[in-house]
């Protein structure tokens, strides 16, 4: 193990290390702690210039209550859920299939198609903006959740295919050969042999896509406008203009907007990290 395990070092360094950990963490999370502090402060604190001191009263319930009952925030949150969940399902389904095709079969053009998916995924997505916006407008899907979902599914399929294909490739191939010898139809091999083995990959991808799509801002402002379809990342800017310079409200709103992926991360941490670090170990 590197660096040298702490148990094998001097007593002094052990104590220093234990003390250093929480300090380092607080420094690292300082910007977030500041926002959390802002969000429970009363309005008067900002008027009197008490930005960083102790709150004069605890107004957490009032502030967060206003986020939920006095703004469009719940609508934006609902939009985000209604965009994120179908995208998650769509991209995972499509890429399970493409990943299966590219990971199991040997055919001409296999690697070429695989690299097309990867390359498309690396492209700076600004180059897609004008044509995709035009396409969405022409289909009558501008400013709808569907328009946003369709694009997200397509774009995420690139990354998901990379992920699924590499995962499926690592599965024991004799299993598939054995099924073929038994005369099992190919689509049944996909459904009954490969799919059950892919559960960890499906879980990892789902959490990753959830986070990516929830946090998307660029496409949200390119393809939607207004509270009918906009997700919360875009909604937070209108929220902020509603509460201009009201830092306690803007902080509470930001925390609410950021929370779902954070919860997802803490609940599914193992899968999340397995997904993000795919390929970091040979």
């Amino acid at each position: 193990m590197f660096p040298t395990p702490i148990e094998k070092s001097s007593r002094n360094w052990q104590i220093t290390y234990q003390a250093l950990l929480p300090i380092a963490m607080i420094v690292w999370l300082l910007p977030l702690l500041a926002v959390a502090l802002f969000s429970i402060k009363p309005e008067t604190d900002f008027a009197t210039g008490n930005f960083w001191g102790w709150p004069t009263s605890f107004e957490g319930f009032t502030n967060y209550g206003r986020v939920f009952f006095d703004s469009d925030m719940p609508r934006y949150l609902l939009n985000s859920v209604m965009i994120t969940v179908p995208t998650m399902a769509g991209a995972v389904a499509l890429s399970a299939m493409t990943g299966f095709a590219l990971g199991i079969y040997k055919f001409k053009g296999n690697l070429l198609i695989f690299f097309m998916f990867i390359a498309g995924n690396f492209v700076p997505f600004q180059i897609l903006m004008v044509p995709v916006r035009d396409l969405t407008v022409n289909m009558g899907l501008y400013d709808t959740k569907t328009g946003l979902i369709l694009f997200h599914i397509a774009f995420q399929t690139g990354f998901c295919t990379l992920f699924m294909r590499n995962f499926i490739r690592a599965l024991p191939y004799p299993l598939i050969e054995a099924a073929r010898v038994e005369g099992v139809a190919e689509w049944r091999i996909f459904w009954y042999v490969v799919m059950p083995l892919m559960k960890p990959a499906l879980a990892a991808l789902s959490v990753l896509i959830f986070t990516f799509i929830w946090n998307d801002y660029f496409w949200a402002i390119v393809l939607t406008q207004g509270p009918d379809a906009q997700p919360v990342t875009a909604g937070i800017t209108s929220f902020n203009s509603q509460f201009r310079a009201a830092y306690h409200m803007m902080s509470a709103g930001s925390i609410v907007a950021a929370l779902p992926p954070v919860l997802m991360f803490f609940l599914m941490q193992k899968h999340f990290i397995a997904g993000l670090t795919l390929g970091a170990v040979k």
Partner: protein
Amino acid sequence: MTMTADAPSHQQRGWYKRNEIAVTPWLFLLPGILFFAVYVILPIFQSFWISFHQWDGLGEKTWVGLANYERLLGGDRKFEVSFWNNIRWLFLYLLAIPMGLFIALFLNQTVRGIRFYKSMFFFPFVISQVVVGLVFSWFYLPNTGLFDQIMGLVGIDIRGGVLGNPNTATYGIIAAGLWPQTAYCMILYLTGLNAVDPEQVEAARLDGAKGHKMLWYVILPQLKPATFIAFVVTIIGALRSFDFIAVMTNGGPFGSTRVLSFYMFEESLSEFGFRMGYGAAIAVVLFFIMLGFIAYFLYSMWRDDKEAR
């Protein structure tokens, strides 16, 4: 779960059964390729096409040949500022890699509660860039912001605040971007460190290697795959940077924080009429900057793939 072959109709048994292995992959690929082609591959070429036109996004496109590129490269000051800011992003964003490695080395221990600390160090990455941008813009507020107060203690006064001053604004935004990116690199390295071969480390230790020598000659070579991915995601992240700029400064002050992706967006959906052709031309330039990196990434992945099988 039954593993017996189903009994397909006689018609199906004929041609499909005989060609099953050859046809199945294409059937499975079809929906994915269709989506990807319509929304990702074709638009790349369409953008090239549009960049040779003048177009407001609604009416007819007018062919202008290379005029957009001539204007772009012939002394468009906004373009120059954006381009150099992109270069700044590229280089400074790479700092996330050593910083992530440093934190990973710091946290790679087995004391009590370390898993909690690792999660806490990682989780800025999970927060949306919009929120991180907002948080940092309050952190940087002139006079009242925490950063300004700390700087005040040292006696440094940045006129207009970090984000209000054209000389510091871009760096302020990059610093905000580095925060989640470092977290990402850290988690890559933590995973990599977990897989470092303990026997090699012990052997090197017996040979008297320690500290930075051990890190450089024994550990880092084994962390190569993690470094590669960290490099890929950091480069892509740097060139795609948009959210932070849109939220923190909206390109200002005096246009000093524009990058190509932001300038492209601004031109295409500008309030003074949509200039889609010019926007597309900017996107094409950004694409070519990226292309060098993409080619390198694909080449490395292709090489590894050949070795694997």
